[in-house]
């Protein structure tokens, strides 16, 4: 199976996302921001970084990239999409996920090994986890505080769309400790922490993140 990894100018974690896809046993396909072409992939990852420098609101420019039009269409058709960090911000800006990511409450960029609790094990990206399991993955962002209005938060909770929650310290001040959410159908996942940096205990704090990429394989193969 083929998983597209988008590179915008300023994308940083595309090599890491591609490595995670390969480690999970799929083929990583590079997608270029300027091409309105998904090259026949089965799923798409929008990786972390600072697309277009993020000098404006994070992700606000990237959502207009030609490739994103294709991603939005494909996602509405049910293609699994994973947005990590800047990718999560872009998916929110593109309207695929509700809410927004704003400046950390501590005002500093935070890079730390973060414990998360798995709240949803039915989405395209989370079937390999046990509900309530705690996983350790890096969090590294300056604008990672998830916010949405109360009604939206209640709806997300009610529909089981909160995928991951911060456990222990919540250093960015995300509302209701939300680290990641899915769309209505559980095909699109956005999260601030970086599962692609936790696929091997040699280079990350654990290999807990690999489960998201393996879950995708299950999803696509059984589809």
């Amino acid at each position, binding site marked *: 199976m083929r998983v597209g990894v988008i590179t915008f*100018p*300023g994308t*940083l*974690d595309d*090599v*890491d996302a591609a*490595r995670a896809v390969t480690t999970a046993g799929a083929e990583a396909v590079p997608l270029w921001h300027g091409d309105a072409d998904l090259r026949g992939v089965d799923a798409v990852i929008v990786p972390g*970084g*600072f697309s*277009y*420098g*993020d*000098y404006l609101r994070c992700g606000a420019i990237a959502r207009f990239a030609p490739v994103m039009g294709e991603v939005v269409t494909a996602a509405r058709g049910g293609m699994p999409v994973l947005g990590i960090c800047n990718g999560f911000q872009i998916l929110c800006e593109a309207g695929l996920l509700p809410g927004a990511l704003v400046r950390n409450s*501590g005002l*500093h*960029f*935070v*890079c*730390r090994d973060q414990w998360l609790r798995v709240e949803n094990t039915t989405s395209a990206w989370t079937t390999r986890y046990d509900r309530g399991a705690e996983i350790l993955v*890096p969090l*590294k962002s*300056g604008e990672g505080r998830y916010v949405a209005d109360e009604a939206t938060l209640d709806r997300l909770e009610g529909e089981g769309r909160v995928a991951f929650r911060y456990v222990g310290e919540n250093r960015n001040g995300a509302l209701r400790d939300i680290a990641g959410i899915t769309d209505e159908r559980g095909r699109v996942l956005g999260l601030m922490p*970086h599962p*692609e*940096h936790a*696929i091997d205990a*040699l*280079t*990350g704090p654990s290999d807990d993140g690999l489960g998201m990429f393996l879950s995708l394989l299950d999803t696509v193969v059984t589809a």
Partner: protein
Amino acid sequence: MTSTDLTGQQTAAPVDTVDHAAATPGLPQPYRELGLKDDEYQRIRAILGRRPTDAELAMYSVMWSEHCSYKSSKVHLRYFGETTTEEMRAGMLAGIGENAGVVDIGDGWAVTFKVESHNHPSYVEPYQGAATGVGGIVRDILAMGARPVAVADPLRFGPADAPDTRRVLPGVVAGVGGYGNCLGLPNIGGEVVFDETYAGNPLVNALCIGSMRVEDLHLAHASGVGNKVILFGARTGLDGIGGVSVLASDSFSGDETGSGRKKLPSVQVGDPFTEKVLIECCLELFRDRLVVGIQDLGGAGLSCATSELASAGDGGMRVELDRVPLRASGMTPAEILSSESQERMCAVVRPEDVDAFLRVCAKWDVTATVIGEVTEVSEEEAARGGRLEITWHGETVVDCPPRTVAHEGPVYQRPVERPADQDELIADTTEALARPSGPEELRETVLRMISSPNLASRAWVTDQYDRYVRGNTVLAQPADSGMIRIDETTGRGVAVATDCNGRYCRLDPYTGAQLALAEAYRNVAAGGATPAAVTNCLNFGSPEDPGVMWQFEQAVRGLADGCRELGIPVTGGNVSFYNQTGSTAILPTPVVGVLGVIDDVRRRVPTGFGTEPGETLLLLGETRDEFDGSEWARVAHGHLGGVPPRVDLGRERLLAEVVIAGSRDGMLSAAHDLSEGGLAQAVVESALAGQTGCRVVLPEGADPFVWLFSESAGRMLVAVPRSEELRFTDMCQARGLPVTKVGVVDPESDAVEIQGVATFGLDELRTAWEGTLPALFD
């Protein structure tokens, strides 16, 4: 000629041409304001056979500055070359004189690394000063044809509780993080040190490592008559022009563009997004073999790039300066040549490759402009140092031998004199200082030491840096060294550590520099890597002070002699002078960076206890009663005097060999260098890193204060799985390395017990160690 001002009006901008200069030999020029001495100005006139134009004066003044020409340090730096043996050169693919040294690390990989200072700008404008420091060193590494793969920042500030430190430190840290994080380079190490001498003069040094295939190295050299010179990256603006603005206001062009234009800050402003794109663009240009030669634009901007490229190539170059894309209106040729606008590179490209080159730039939305070409020089011109011609709308504004600009600046043999107070300082030892005695005082001392600003956790700083990006970081702060995987298949990687204890250097700069070298060497070995090469950033006070020059000379000699003894070459370096406030110089601070090679990063040795079920704690090396210049003397008594710890580089080498062998044979489960704060500090850090308790049992009859806090060099704390203990201690004894059993790791325990002294809960230690910096800077 005309130019366009801010309102879009065409205004006349008279320009000082070569013809005009020849016709007006007596015109007064503000060379002193530009930092040139009378004899230096006369030398320029002699080289040119006339007075320099404004543009030439701008070029010579900036290129002959201390920062660019190394005029005070050159005579001393030669000693590095003189002490480098053929054997030491064997693993070097390029060395001093290049932008950065290049080391062959095996498996077809070459690694380049360098550290540079950005001290003064970071005091004036902490965020941008630090940010552009990162940007500059990254472009240096890129210009070697390498992909930058990691950064690290050795930082020094005034007292942690001083009001100005609260202005400078958060800004510097945010700048390092803001730029490096956005570039996508993991920050894997560095230092944070506080001392009152840095109060008006923080040190912001930036290190970068790059990797490339060995066969790609040739990119660093330029030549080929007819080849095109392409400027690419950001547009050129008025930032970082500094002193050159006197040319515009005093001598020639008046105020043709109206108010306010010259009032830009002299510190450059960084745009990391542009640099990230520039990196990827350059790497694609290298991959497609479209570059003959390349140079980054850093200090001295186009003056430096054009003169160095021409000088390193065939010696001839013609540049049409009016083709340079600008972001400010009405800039004079002198300003364009001096601008230090960031994120720019200059390449030499074969004419047939220009279209392909420009296509790659367009793909990355990078502005690229052909601004000139490599020209032929006559033999006579070559003998004079080549010929660099720069025109402005068809008129020649520079016509000079580029070698005289880039490489033939003045060289000074500054007076050197051992400071008068040196003997008094040495005589003032720590012998008479009151020492803690009894368990209660020792317990208090442990907690006071680990929470003191120089020994407390650096997490407040390093948590603002991305250490994970690119997915190859194997070790990062708070480990002794940063380690990066270079080859994902074989696991080959490199480690880097930077160190310097300025207090030791103040007491004895020769020994202090060797101690800095020894510590960085030890830190690299502690992770399991074999030390291979050295870089340095020599931060000192004013070279016009004979006492400072003595410190400098001594430090250079100590470092060079030390490298020869350890058998590892200095592959590059940087000098920063004039680090002083009034007549008070900073502590002499020769920051030493050591690069190590590890054949497989999977056998790296971590710092934390508890990776194996049962571990014995061994102290390698000898502990002596050495407290002069120590962190204890500072924390407990505010004292600096005496002689620094003894250094024995033969012992350092043996220690490293034993630890590397232990790592290779799987005999070590943890290792931690002993340095500032001594054994107590190392035990606490390793216990906290592994979140695992231990019981420390000092040898019978040992003075617990000396054993816990002495800063004797050549020591390391290692944890050895119980099954390997005998094999490892046998190896130490066979090799003649002193080894002392100092306790056991206890995986069931959440406390550090120092038998006969005190027991500390891990939570208590963590609160003390981690609380200090957040309390000061949040």
